[in-house]
């Protein structure tokens, strides 16, 4: 069974429609909203602030902590139990590892920057949406960063390499693979690479090539969101 036409009619390299906005949460030091298709993420950044318990403090540089959470009825299935679980812990960890290399927290020894990402509505690609939202929120909070991080999933559905899989594609009958990728903008360094499923060597190379252009599209949306915040203010 081959996969010629995508279930929602997109081209193989086409992403779902994206939307992003910076500074959506007034109480946070920086925040962002990022939506790709039916997956919606809100990120809030707090800090740099004092870090407790004290044994976690690093006198050389500040610490980054990510907190990922899917909201109770965000999926299409059963109620998701809110709070920490094995999956959210893992995603929080990979998010931290995806963002940290681009941050410069050397000016904030012993302090912490906290990022909270909540997803009120999900349809696959949540860790990618979470990373993309968190990168906008970090820039909005004025944390020094070497570069932006943009993230999107690529993969293979029944022999066809596609970008930005939605849930119905991940659940497609046949051999499917889902590869979330996070990339920096300038150097195109990969800061997140995970995989679920099976893929051939040739397809993997092709998928990673596709990830370059796909993350670039996400970057444009992130950039737009940050710049728009200052355009909207009328001169009068």
């Amino acid at each position: 069974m081959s996969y010629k036409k995508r279930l929602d009619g997109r081209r193989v390299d086409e992403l779902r429609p994206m939307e992003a906005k910076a500074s959506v949460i007034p109480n946070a030091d920086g925040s962002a909203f990022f939506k790709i298709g039916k997956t919606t993420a809100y990120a809030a950044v707090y800090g740099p602030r004092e870090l407790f318990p004290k044994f976690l403090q690093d006198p050389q540089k500040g610490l980054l902590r990510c907190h990922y959470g899917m909201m109770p009825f965000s999926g299409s299935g059963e109620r998701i139990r809110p709070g920490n679980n094995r999956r959210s812990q893992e995603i929080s960890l990979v998010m931290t590892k995806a963002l940290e290399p681009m941050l410069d927290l050397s000016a904030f020894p012993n302090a912490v920057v906290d990022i909270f990402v909540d997803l009120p509505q999900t349809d696959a690609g949540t860790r990618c949406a979470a990373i993309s939202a968190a990168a906008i929120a970090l820039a909005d909070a004025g944390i020094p960063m070497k570069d932006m991080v943009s993230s999107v999933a690529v993969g293979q559905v029944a022999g066809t390499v596609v970008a930005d899989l939605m849930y119905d594609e991940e659940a497609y009958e046949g051999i499917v693979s889902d590869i979330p990728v996070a990339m920096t903008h300038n150097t195109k360094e990969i800061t997140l690479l995970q995989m679920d499923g099976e893929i051939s060597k040739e397809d993997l190379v092709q998928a990673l090539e596709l990830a370059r252009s796909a993350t670039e599209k996400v970057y444009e949306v992130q950039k737009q969101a940050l710049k728009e915040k200052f355009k909207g203010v009328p001169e009068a």
Partner: protein
Amino acid sequence: MSTIVVKEKDIVIPGEVLAEGLDYLPGDNTYREADTIYSKVLGLVSILGRVVKITALAGPYVPKTGDKIIGKVTDITMNGWRVETETAYSAMLNVKDATTRFIRKEENLSELIAIGDYIVAKIVQVTSQNLIDLAMREPGLHRITSGRIIKINSQKVPRVIGKQGSMISLIKSKTNCEITVGQNGLVWLHGAPAGEWLAEKAVHLIEAKAHTEGLTDKVQQFLEENQKNEL
């Protein structure tokens, strides 16, 4: 051959290319990798001769020696007060730097400055680990006993003060308020309740429109309109 990619007053995001080639120098909030200069924060470009720098539009307050800040006393120790500074780091105010008058050894420090009091103080030293030392032995530095304290983004403080204090003196004269702006983003307003209220609105207006031009005129217009409403 060096080229500059951005213009003065452009808004750039982290990682954006500012200039290529070695003829330009990286200033504040930028970094150079190979031949290219990149931005490190979200901010406005400013070009001074060959130096490209970014004025941050958001971000935490970074304590600097000589800054006047407003802080809240959180603890009293053997030799002074611990002060919260609206950063990730607390500051110390030593007894010998707190006042010009003599303090006896057995004196109760909370009679001078109690826990929960706000103070206007000056930073005398910041270490590499961001340990902050404060002093209050100069005119204009004191314990706050009345009025109100509001919090703004510390990056907007220069706009609230204005060129040579033009903005702040405008608000002071229109509202009959005494105003002290701490570099850490806390602002103390003291005057008649109506004046304090108007001054608070004006400060928040500046904070919201800090990156636009002709701000002084807008604030003047705002203050005059609201003064009419009051009368």
